[in-house]
């Protein structure tokens, strides 16, 4: 059973490594984003500003670099996969597979992540180190907390993606809602500008939404802006969100299947 998933993961990993030209361009695009954001922060801190919200320029540089590396490793192809397969009808043959479909898509995305780690994150890290110095974590213990926190973040992002993908089963005429979700996540996750700088009211609302636990929490741990105890509490909240989203997905998926059968019948 597990072997089947590993096979999917491995195939995706190998195809991911095969497309050199795409990788080159993706690294280039992310590099431009990274340079532009870091220079924007430099301009914001220029002329004597030392610390804002207990963060200095070095913290934000590290935050930005890591944020862009995370965004290229968090592969959530599932929303596009579902959308595409429903549009061209391939979803039917996928339902014939003897293993759970969503788990297949997850295995596929994990393969994408592994190849991205090698051919996107590594070059980005090297370029960042070259331009701005190595973005070290604030301490060893924070690095240890950062890694599990990133995995939980990915869980939230992937479940959100799969949920948005399900919308296509009902209303595929409205286009790919995944793009809409991505543009909301980009702002509210703190991936570009940390939410700590946002107005108080936005920060309060954001505490009750899953988004800030996808980028800001792990990155905050990495730069040491979130202490150990707070980090553990945040990881607890991440767990809760994963459980909630997972139940939503399971319920939605069950109803979706009957919906597809009706369409096909």
């Amino acid at each position, binding site marked *: 059973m597990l072997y089947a998933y590993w096979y999917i993961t491995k195939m995706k990993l190998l195809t991911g490594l095969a497309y050199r*030209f*795409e990788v*080159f*361009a*993706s690294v*280039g*695009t992310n590099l*431009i*984003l990274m*340079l*532009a954001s870091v*220079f*924007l922060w*430099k*301009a*914001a*801190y*220029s*002329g004597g*500003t030392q610390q*804002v*919200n207990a963060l200095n320029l070095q913290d934000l540089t590290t935050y930005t670099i890591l944020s862009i590396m995370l965004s290229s490793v968090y592969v959530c192809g599932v929303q596009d996969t579902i959308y595409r397969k429903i549009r061209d009808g391939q979803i039917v043959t996928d339902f014939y597979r003897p293993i759970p479909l969503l788990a297949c898509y997850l295995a596929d995305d994990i393969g994408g992540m592994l190849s991205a780690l090698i051919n996107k994150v590594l070059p980005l890290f090297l370029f960042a180190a070259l331009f701005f110095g190595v973005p070290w974590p604030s301490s060893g213990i924070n690095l240890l907390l950062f890694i599990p926190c990133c995995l939980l973040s990915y869980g939230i992002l992937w479940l959100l993606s799969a949920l948005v993908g399900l919308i296509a089963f009902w209303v595929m*005429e*409205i*286009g*790919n*809602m995944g*793009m*809409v979700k991505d*543009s*909301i996540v*980009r*702002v509210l996750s703190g991936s*570009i*500008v940390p939410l700590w*700088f*946002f*107005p108080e009211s936005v920060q309060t609302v954001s505490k009750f939404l899953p988004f800030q636990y996808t980028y800001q929490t792990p990155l905050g741990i990495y730069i040491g802006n979130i202490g150990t105890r707070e980090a553990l509490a945040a990881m607890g909240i991440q767990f809760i969100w994963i459980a909630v989203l997972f139940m939503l997905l399971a319920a939605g998926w069950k109803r979706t299947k009957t919906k597809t059968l009706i369409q096909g019948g």
Partner: protein
Amino acid sequence: MVSSIRHYASVAACFARLAIQRQLEYPLFLFSWLLMIPIQYFSGIWMLKIIVDRFQPLNGWDFPELTFLYGLGLISHGIFVVFFINTWHIDHMVIDGQFDRLLLRPMNVFFQLVASYVNFIGLIDCIPGIIIFIYGCQLVGFEWTFFNVIKFLLVLAGGVFIRAALFITLGTIAFWTKRNASMVGFALGMLERGTMYPLTIYPHIIQTLFTFVIPIGFISFYPAAQFLGKSSDGLQLPLSFALMTPAIGMVCFFLSQWIFRIGMKSYESAGS
């Protein structure tokens, strides 16, 4: 001459009607774009406001001026996307063999390439652009005198031509490599960061690059600096330089046409 222009115009109108009808066939399909594009750009300007509020003006550019710059860059992007989006798809056309079809018709190939797809959906990009620009004009107290309007329109046209020239040149690469789709994302990222933020926040080497090599500074930064009477304190350029946008746009455009023609010579049909 006149009859040939009339012929081209009638073909362009026909193409445009077809393209718009094709895109309006599934109107609900636009829904996700209609949500996503405004979210993306309004949040972009919102984040600039957050940074300026918490920190300080960016190299002397305060929020009203940043809004003006951002809006100017975004409108020229929107107009570009309406008229020239097919320059993003040259590689598809080469691989599918659609490009052969253009070569067989007795008309200018580049004209057919561009005219055959008027991207009606691109108007969605213009909506946040126009709103942000007008808001920026209000904030900075931009005077809509006759002279200023003419200058604004010239700058806009020049900016669109600079963008078009860049993507035509990139698209030409597909004649040799057969693929360049990912270059489009790369160029878009560069254009967005280069035209919507003040160029002076970047190091001198990047400013030089974006002024003399890939002149995207002329799309919005130099014109905005002149409209607002700001010194471009990075590179010391005379301010009248900024109004060269239309001229630079035309030069780049003709250069890219020349490159496109060279590229077409090495085009070999990908069909089997």
